[in-house]
């Protein structure tokens, strides 16, 4: 089914309207400065922002650049600023907006083109905290008489499960003024994933991660603004994880003091 057919199909069930969307364009090849461009497009009750961007790209203006993939809040690619608030395009519906809808690239990241930003620094911060199991039990060949796999009780899983839902969309970095003020700050998602692995019963890498967390640019740059948790599309509550990380870093420091 092409877009036109889908649109036709929708008309039968939904009231179709026209809405104006303003997109912040940046085309470094033709213009050094970004500028605003308005698009008029048909929307109905089920039109997501990603649908709208796809409509613009396919029907109105093929020069528009943006990232997307799964359209179901799993891949974390389609983050943009909607009226100044970081949102996933696929999880944002135009029916919820009256009046102006301003779309900008995610804040605090260098813009490459239109809505596409360079997230390299986020990936570096993520890598710095080693967000993977360290020194876990080696998986041996499966022996049905003595099965030895990653064992974890539901209780052990519950300790970190909430913090494992991160999809690395980077919305929390756009929401975090401390990251905007100092880009060396490891930031919400990286610190949350560090905490998630520190809480994992299979992991033995806490000591390595604490060295990253217990820096000024680690947990201590956070002032619990809390906006990261507001914008998180997966309800991970990174602010809670970062501040629980402060408690852990404080314990880590105390232990280091007594052990000398």
């Amino acid at each position, binding site marked *: 089914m092409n877009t036109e057919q889908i649109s036709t199909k929708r008309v039968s069930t939904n009231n179709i309207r026209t809405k104006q969307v303003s997109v912040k364009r*940046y085309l*470094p090849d033709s213009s*050094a*400065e*970004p500028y605003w461009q308005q698009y008029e497009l048909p929307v109905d009750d089920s039109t997501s922002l990603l649908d709208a961007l796809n409509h613009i790209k396919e029907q109105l203006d093929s020069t528009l650049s943006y990232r997307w993939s799964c359209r179901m809040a799993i891949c974390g690619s389609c983050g943009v600023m909607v009226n100044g608030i970081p949102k996933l395009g696929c999880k944002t519906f135009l029916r919820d907006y009256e009046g102006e809808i301003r779309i900008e690239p995610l804040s605090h990241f*260098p*813009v490459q083109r239109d809505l596409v930003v360079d997230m390299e620094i986020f990936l570096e911060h993520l890598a710095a905290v080693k967000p993977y199991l360290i020194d876990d039990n080696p998986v041996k060949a499966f022996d049905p008489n003595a099965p030895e796999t990653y064992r974890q009780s539901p209780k052990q899983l519950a300790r970190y499960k909430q913090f494992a839902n991160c999809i690395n969309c980077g919305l929390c970095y756009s929401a975090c*003024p401390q990251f905007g*003020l100092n880009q060396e700050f490891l930031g919400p998602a990286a610190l949350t994933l560090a905490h998630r692995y520190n809480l994992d019963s299979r992991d033995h890498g806490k000591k390595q991660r604490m*060295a*990253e967390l*217990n*820096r*000024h640019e*680690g947990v*201590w740059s956070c*002032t619990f603004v809390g906006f990261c948790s507001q914008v998180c599309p997966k309800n991970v509550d990174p602010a809670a994880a970062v501040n629980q990380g*402060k408690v852990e*870093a*404080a314990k880590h*420091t*105390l232990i*280091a*003091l007594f052990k000398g």
Partner: protein
Amino acid sequence: MSKLSINRPSMNKQGAQHKQAFDEPLWWGLFSAGGVCFAVILPAVILFIAVLLPLGLLPAEALSYERASALLFSVPGFLFVGAVVCLPLFHAAHRLRHGLFDISVGNDTLNKKLMYGGAALLSILALGIVVAGMLG
């Protein structure tokens, strides 16, 4: 487009990169303890001492010179000052330090010394007054 800052050479950063912030847990601990005192104890303290007392709404003898001296210049008075003056001062110092960073005023290394140093000096003064009163 906002201008991109030129990358600082990574050589310079290596040293500072993994510097452990051993002092931060102390400041954060004092900030948190002070925050609890500010939230739980201070509303009553401000209401009684800074509002009801000067308005004359407390019984005449409630905070007479004799009673106030007896209450303050004592071991419970010492603890009271710790919870109502010292810890909230460190709470305030922490928030002011980060607030100054938030609005890009001064530099953090100096602000830290000024804020926590100020809180420490005023705390010593406050506890010193209690001790002086107990001895005097």
